[in-house]
């Protein structure tokens, strides 16, 4: 379960980096990529939640961090739609949280 979560979250991270490059250049953030990023991230979080439920030892703090990052991502998406450009500060915080969570998850997986 964790391995699958790591793979889809890694895909989400790659797409997230791509989105950030558009946002940093103040270019239109492609919504197709944003939706795909969101879909991968949501799938990864669902897998982590399932792991939380079924596994005796699960990365629960990391899962919570991912959920907080996901809420931030949803706000970035909504603000981008409403205001025409992604809020850079919030997008950066969202990305940073996700990277930290991903690193923690990878560490947890490798030390299992």
């Amino acid at each position, binding site marked *: 379960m964790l391995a699958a979560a790591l793979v889809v979250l890694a895909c989400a991270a790659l797409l997230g980096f791509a989105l950030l490059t558009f946002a940093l250049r103040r270019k*239109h953030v492609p*919504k197709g990529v944003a939706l795909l990023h969101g879909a991968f991230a949501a799938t990864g979080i669902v897998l982590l939640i399932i792991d939380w439920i079924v596994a005796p030892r699960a990365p629960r703090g990391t899962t919570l961090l991912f959920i907080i990052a996901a809420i931030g991502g949803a706000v970035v998406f909504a603000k981008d739609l409403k205001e025409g450009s992604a809020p850079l500060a919030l997008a950066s915080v969202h990305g940073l949280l996700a990277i930290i969570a991903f690193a923690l998850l990878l560490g947890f997986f490798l030390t299992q």
Partner: protein
Amino acid sequence: MRSIWKAAAQCNPRAPLTRDLTVDVAIVGGGITGLMCAHALAYDGLKVAVLEARRIGEGSTGNSTGNLYALVGERPRRIERSHAETVLNARAEAVDRIEALVRALDIDCGWVRCPWVVYTHSTQPTKALLQAEDLARAGRLHARPTSVPLPVSAGLAFAVENQAQFNPLRFVHGLAASLPCEIYEGTPVTALDDERCRVHTPAGIVDARYVVLASHAPKGMLALHGEMEPYREYGAAARLAREALPPGIFWSLDEPYRSIRGYSYDNANHVVVVGESHWVGRIDDTRVCYAELEAFVRNHFGTDAIAYRWSAQNYRAADGLPYVGRLHPDSRVLVATGFGADGLTYGAVSAHMLSDVIAERPNPMLRLLDPSRLPHARALPGIMAEGVAVLKQFARDIPWIDRGDPTSLAPGEAKVFDRSGEKIAAFRNDRGELEMVSAVCTHMQCIVRWNTAERTWDCPCHGSRFEPGGRVIEGPAWHDLPARPATPE
């Protein structure tokens, strides 16, 4: 392309707004809704200014069918039967109010009372016919079986008497000429300050106690747009080499849906046919819509003399009822939208309702059509489908695909292509010049699509439309599509 109503209605242009203004009510949109509302408010003694982006009546009013009727054609199945009598009464009263204005102001608009006839091709009652009959019954309208006096294949039909037809553009021109208020043409509203009740135009700011958004689709990003579907519908008028069609509004309820009426103008009798509706921006070649209408005219009325072609946009509410009233419960911004294809009559209904809001008069329709109302359960599938459809459009926005070379476009051709990850909408005009703008709609960032028949960029999400050069034509977008250089910077 222009409608037969525009051909038959001439009016001197009015000056745009060039200064700041303070009024009691600023009305955005100079169609039937805005002008009838202005009329009611001006006669309540209020100072009113009408701001029209183009010319009076040039939007949906001047591109409509010119039919007025109590029953609704739009989604009769979705209208709660307990509301039918209230809604249909209000619509019948609105038709009476228009007639009273035509007579009081002596407006030469070809006003005629006539029957509203719906028919099916089948001799068996179809679902659509039964729904229309059921709604008429619930609204206590007398519907009688009838025959259809047109060269179309009609099986079953029923008629409701005492409906009406006119030239809608001549009506609004006549109404505008009589109004004791300021009317500005060529004055698009570029921003709205909801809190201060202030509208911005290119050359002046208007402060008001109330702002009425009578521009069909309210501007800006509103939850309402998630509850409405934008449709385009096409019209054609052909000269007949015979006597005029009998007065009447004739609707075929079977697919392909057609609305048929006659109109005499310029010493010729015409048949007017409307149909081929589709969600804005979601078909590949809109020229097919005109071709289908023209084939219908040719096959049934034996004429190729298509003299006028036009199209119009309408917004269909998920629960079948329009949204009329305050934008939010405490807002001084009022809206009237979601009329579907029943807009002329609903426009008159809305004008009356909005003037009642401002004059603080009770109106039983206000609660029913409240823009903040919770959607009825039977509207939820439609709202969800609309949401999914918008997401699908977002999913089309992938960079680095749609590669192409705009210089290969022939005159009259257009394409969305990718340049360095950015979607560009390119059109080569008849002079051979490339017009390039961002393909990202300024409303909610969907990617626009080319409308081949009308040569416009149309947004498939919420129906904003833009000229090839990017200027907003209609829809919820405030801002033009920004221009892009023909060569990368």
